[in-house]
């Protein structure tokens, strides 16, 4: 499927018949030369094949599943093709409130938040558009992102406003964008501190990695233990505050925050370790030069360190964004998606439907999630990632 013409841009192999290679028998020599010439293909092909084998088949099957309805029949089951019925159910039918939520009245404050966020979004788009020459195709792409982004903002602010109820889609956005932003900031802070010449920093570096090492199911159960208002370590505090027997996990936002804290606890280490590695492999010359020029620590960080680690930072945020969209164990174990469906993420939504044998709608939720993630991923890569990495 790929045209195997690795265009040699970089190291000039030149007339790469090595002086030493003459000693090898001719056929072997030829083989080596051939393999060397095909290096581009040989290097990438195994990975591509492995990923292909385990992605194309499941993807197509799931797509078919999302367009069908599961029917138990005598002696087994069958899938009946129903077209877009499952999707209709999600967006305008019986699952609408579960999936999209219910809009509340925005009020003055709601409008202010919405306009502020929209303005921020517009500035980001405008700057991205200005970065490269404007072509009709890019204009169209930015237009689509603008419309979709505004619709998403409106849905998020509208359902979170008083009287509204965010559906699983918006709850997932809260986990993803809120969670990843916090994880990035804390991870970056810790990485910068740990990259300094501090005595004992190795201890901190190892300790900070620990949460990532624990199986997510285990972390979820650990946090369920910790947040238990009867047996958990914070039970006396809860009692003292007058929450005895009233689990604070019963409050929708309390429960969502609990889920986010668990996720934060587990995944900040990932940000930390990757950013730390990036900080430690940056070249020291520019920093030294800046010190000679009398730059302040903040200036050095903002103008030299940050641009140097930007490609890694951008990648790590993208990976976490994608992974965070699939958040499952934490809400499933910690709150069971409750109270009601307040903490249910899209993956959990799909799982709940799947458990009740509604395979079709479950696959439709999963495909909607895939669509949202792909859209966010592409928008992120086009708007931000390409601008900070050289190879984009």
């Amino acid at each position, binding site marked *: *499927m790929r*045209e195997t013409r690795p*265009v*040699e841009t970089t*190291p*000039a*192999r030149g007339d790469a018949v*090595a002086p*030493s*290679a003459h000693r090898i028998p001719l056929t072997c020599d030829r083989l080596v030369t051939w393999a060397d010439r095909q290096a*581009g293909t040989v290097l990438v092909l*195994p990975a*591509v094949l*492995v990923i292909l084998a*385990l*992605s*194309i088949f*499941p993807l197509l099957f*799931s797509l*078919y599943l999302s367009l069908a309805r599961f029917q138990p029949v005598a002696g087994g089951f069958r899938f009946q093709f129903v077209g877009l019925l499952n999707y209709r159910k999600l967006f305008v039918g019986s699952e609408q409130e579960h999936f999209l939520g219910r809009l509340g009245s925005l009020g003055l404050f709601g409008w202010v938040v919405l306009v502020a966020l929209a303005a921020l979004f517009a500035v980001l788009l405008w700057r991205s558009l200005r970065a490269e020459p404007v072509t009709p195709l890019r204009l169209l792409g930015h237009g689509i992102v603008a419309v979709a982004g505004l619709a998403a903002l409106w849905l998020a602010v509208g359902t979170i406003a008083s009287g509204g109820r965010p559906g699983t889609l918006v709850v997932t956005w809260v986990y993803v964008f809120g969670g990843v932003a916090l994880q990035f900031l804390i991870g970056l*802070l*810790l990485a910068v*501190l740990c990259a*300094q*010449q501090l005595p004992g*920093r190795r201890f*901190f570096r*190892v300790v*900070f*990695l*620990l949460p990532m*090492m*624990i*199986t997510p*199911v*285990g972390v979820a*159960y650990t*946090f*369920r233990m910790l947040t238990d208002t009867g*047996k958990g*370590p914070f039970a*006396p505090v809860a009692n003292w505050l007058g929450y005895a027997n009233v689990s604070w996990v019963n409050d929708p936002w309390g429960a969502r925050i609990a889920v986010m804290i668990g996720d934060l*606890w587990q995944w900040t280490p*990932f940000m930390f370790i990757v950013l730390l*590695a990036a900080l*430690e*492999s940056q070249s020291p010359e520019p920093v030294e030069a800046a010190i000679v020029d009398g730059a302040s620590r903040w200036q050095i960080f903002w103008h030299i360190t940050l641009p140097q680690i930007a490609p890694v930072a951008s990648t790590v945020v*993208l990976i976490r964004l*994608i992974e965070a969209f699939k958040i*499952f164990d934490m809400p499933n174990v910690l709150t069971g998606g409750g109270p009601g469906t307040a903490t249910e993420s899209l*993956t959990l939504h799909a799982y709940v439907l799947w458990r009740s044998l509604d*395979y079709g709608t*479950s*696959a439709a939720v*999963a495909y909607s*999630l*895939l669509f949202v993630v792909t859209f966010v991923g592409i928008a992120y*890569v086009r708007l931000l990632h390409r601008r900070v*990495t050289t*190879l984009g």
Partner: protein
Amino acid sequence: MALHWRTSPTRPGPLAMLASYAILTVWALVVLFPLYWLAITAFKLPIHVNEGPTYVPFLDFQPSLHAWRYILVDLGNDTLRPYLNTVIVGITSSVLTLLLGAAATYGLSRFTYRIRLASVLVFLAGAVLAAAGMEFGLPWQLAVAGGLGAFALAWATALRRVGGPRLGNADIAFWMISQRMLPPVAIVIPIYILFQRLTLLDTRTALVIAYVAANLPIAVWLLRDYFQTIPIELEESAAIDGANRYQILWRIVLPLALPGLVATFLFIFVLAWNEYLLALFLSSAKAQTMPLLVAAQNATRGPQWWYMSVLILLMIGPVIALAIVLERYIARGLLLGAVRG
């Protein structure tokens, strides 16, 4: 230039040092408290857990080894077998992922690939036909042959230089990462059916294959940025000295990218070590892994916190050891030394 360890430019002053320690200590406490709670729960009797929180062993409650005895002695082989499975699957899949991932990443960062869109479409069409064929009762061998045929056809399309716009390296990389986007809940059923057809269900092989495919995109994306920071001059001089691509990759690029390789290995190993959902579907008895055993302690009588804590601690042990051993490789100056030395 002489290679010696100079004072780091980022050595903080006393006040900044104090502030740094304060922040680091706070976060260390945040990290350690849940682990402390896990550790003491592993030594509590059920009755002590249910009575309400107790904090300090010997003062608050009398520690007991009952949970450890149950897990290690009473369950015995039923704990050992999942443990061995987890170790074997974790190491095998991570090493394979790192090898394939490093090769692919090096290719993506040093060669320019151009794929015709038409080739991709031809391949996809072939795959759809093969899948549809399977759906209507063709034997799977025929379907696989069809898939390979489509692949060859796509290859031929590419070689004959026909059709449409071309896709570049960034598109390949994005395609790889996009494979992580579909929620596992949705792809796990097709994958189950796939391994069922291959009669690989409940084997470690199935888990290894699944984990390699699942973690490769992450490995490629993490390594890509490390490979880009390696100075190209070193590779050029090696090429002039007569080294071929594979020698350059093995002797120059990989050693230089070591911090990135270590970080990536650690990450994908942890992912494989802790993976739950795929294991839940692909293994039952023989290939059961530890996360399944942990979740299994949430029985009809409610979560058995004490057993769960013991199992989680058993799972954390080796990864902590690994983190301590490998941490030193993520040290500063490897690249620095190479350019200067």
